[in-house]
């Protein structure tokens, strides 16, 4: 592999980076107890995310990347280690976090607008103050005019766009996305990447994006963290050099292909490593 070429700005010296970061993940380990014995999912993972930075976490399935994301959201606990957001340790869910799953998780009996406003109701904030923001987000997401539709009347991509709006409506400081587009077909997925890029560039949030698509990670993120197979460790932390706002036609350039090729070889290496075959 032509590793030197097109692989700019490696981020090393992780501990130094973690210290002042907006989201700091330090020495996180996770051991699951299963019937076959203890399974180590994550081994001393450390990294930091700057405020307003878009970080993609890339790795093979079962590397613990989703678990890690859920820990940042306070939905999972670590066996050891510490995660802090803006200097405060994460001990449970908090309203500064917007979350997206692989499934859009829309409530079928609610209209699109009510689905977007669902977090406002749960957080007991005044609906009236957020109505305009909800409508504005739906407009940006290309869903203007669908406010009163029910989820089953929308396509898969439209539903996931509603989910993006719902995650942003209460203006969380951090956006956590757990393979949000992996259930969509390839064309819709590209379309969703463009939509997310557009929405995110207008509402710069600190974003953590878990995916197993190399291209998606490189196109969307400022930084790509690559994780190894179980037990998950960080094997690469790469800065993506492209300026924002990004043009999606970037997809075909040699520069991006170089980066993708480099990441692919890294992931391929972990998959072929002895003792980790599944």
């Amino acid at each position, binding site marked *: 592999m032509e590793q030197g070429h097109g692989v700019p700005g490696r981020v090393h010296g992780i501990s130094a980076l973690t210290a002042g970061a907006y989201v700091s993940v330090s020495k996180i380990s996770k051991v699951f107890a299963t019937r076959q014995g203890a399974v180590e999912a994550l081994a001393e993972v450390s990294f930091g995310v700057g405020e307003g930075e878009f970080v993609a976490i890339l790795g093979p399935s079962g590397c613990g990347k989703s678990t890690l994301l859920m820990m940042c*959201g*306070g*939905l999972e606990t670590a066996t050891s280690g510490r995660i802090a957001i803006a200097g405060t340790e994460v001990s*449970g*869910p*908090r*309203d500064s*976090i917007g*979350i997206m*799953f692989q*499934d859009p*998780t829309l*409530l*079928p*009996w609610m209209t699109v607008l009510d689905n977007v406003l*669902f*977090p406002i*109701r*749960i*957080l007991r904030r005044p609906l009236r103050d957020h109505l305009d923001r909800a409508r504005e987000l739906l407009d940006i997401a290309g869903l203007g005019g669908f406010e009163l539709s*029910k989820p*089953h009347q929308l396509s898969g991509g439209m539903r996931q766009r509603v989910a993006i709006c719902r995650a942003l409506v209460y203006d969380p400081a951090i956006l956590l996305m757990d393979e949000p587009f992996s259930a969509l077909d390839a064309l819709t997925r590209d379309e969703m990447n463009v939509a997310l890029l557009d929405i995110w560039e207008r509402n710069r949030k600190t974003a953590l994006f878990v995916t197993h698509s190399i291209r998606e990670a490189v196109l969307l993120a400022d930084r790509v963290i690559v994780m190894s197979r179980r037990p998950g460790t960080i094997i690469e932390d790469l800065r993506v050099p492209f300026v924002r706002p990004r043009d999606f036609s970037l997809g075909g350039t040699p520069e991006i292909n170089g980066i993708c090729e480099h990441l692919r070889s890294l992931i391929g290496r972990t998959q072929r490593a002895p003792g980790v075959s599944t």
Partner: protein
Amino acid sequence: MTVAPAPAGRWDEPILAVVLPLASAAVFLFLWQAVVTLAGLPEAILPPPLAVLGQFFASLPELLRQARVTVLDSVVAFAIATAVGVALASCFTFSGTLRDAVYPNLVLLQLIPKIALAPLFVVWLGVGAPSRVIFAVFISFFPIVLSTATGLAATDAYALKLCRALGASPWQIFIRVRVPFALSHFFTGLKIATTLVFIGIVVGEFISSNAGLGHYILLAGAGGATSRIFVGLIALSLSGLAFYGAVVAAERLVQRWWWE
């Protein structure tokens, strides 16, 4: 002119779906009438349909009076069964320990022929309406609690995760997410319960009562008035149908709210 091939869904299919069962029922009634008339069976053994029809209109005021008693008791029993069933199922979602302790026993109880316990309720609660109503509650609340509990537990896992991520309280999750998700299961239980509640009330009326359709049928049987037994049955079926229809109508309303 060319002849078009027959389309897959024929226009008369929905009409046939109504006409065919009606036609077979009509044939059955006609045969019944013919057999009774031709064989000269005495009316006390098997009255012909036309005689039953005549009897029905002749006894209509009396039937309405008796049906009123049965239906009112059933409605009260149904309301209590629904309240108890939903309350218990809700408790299960808030306390896993309670669910683990009680739920298997409910499933087991569901399997015994509860109808055989009717005399026990007369022993405990006397021969009045309360014993009939409580007995009907007893046999009809099982499907409500079981299906509602199933529905409340069947909430989409991602929806629950979303709620947890937002720091929703158990009560918020219950009201805003679990209950709407449970509604279709809940109505399944209700529909089964409507039939059971009628069975419970009528069995109670058989055992001890001085009014109601069950009582009417029992008296007719004792007096050898066979056509009045049939007339009582018709009134009972119509009441049960109306009751079931009301529950289905409520379910439709909820489905409209869900999907439209």
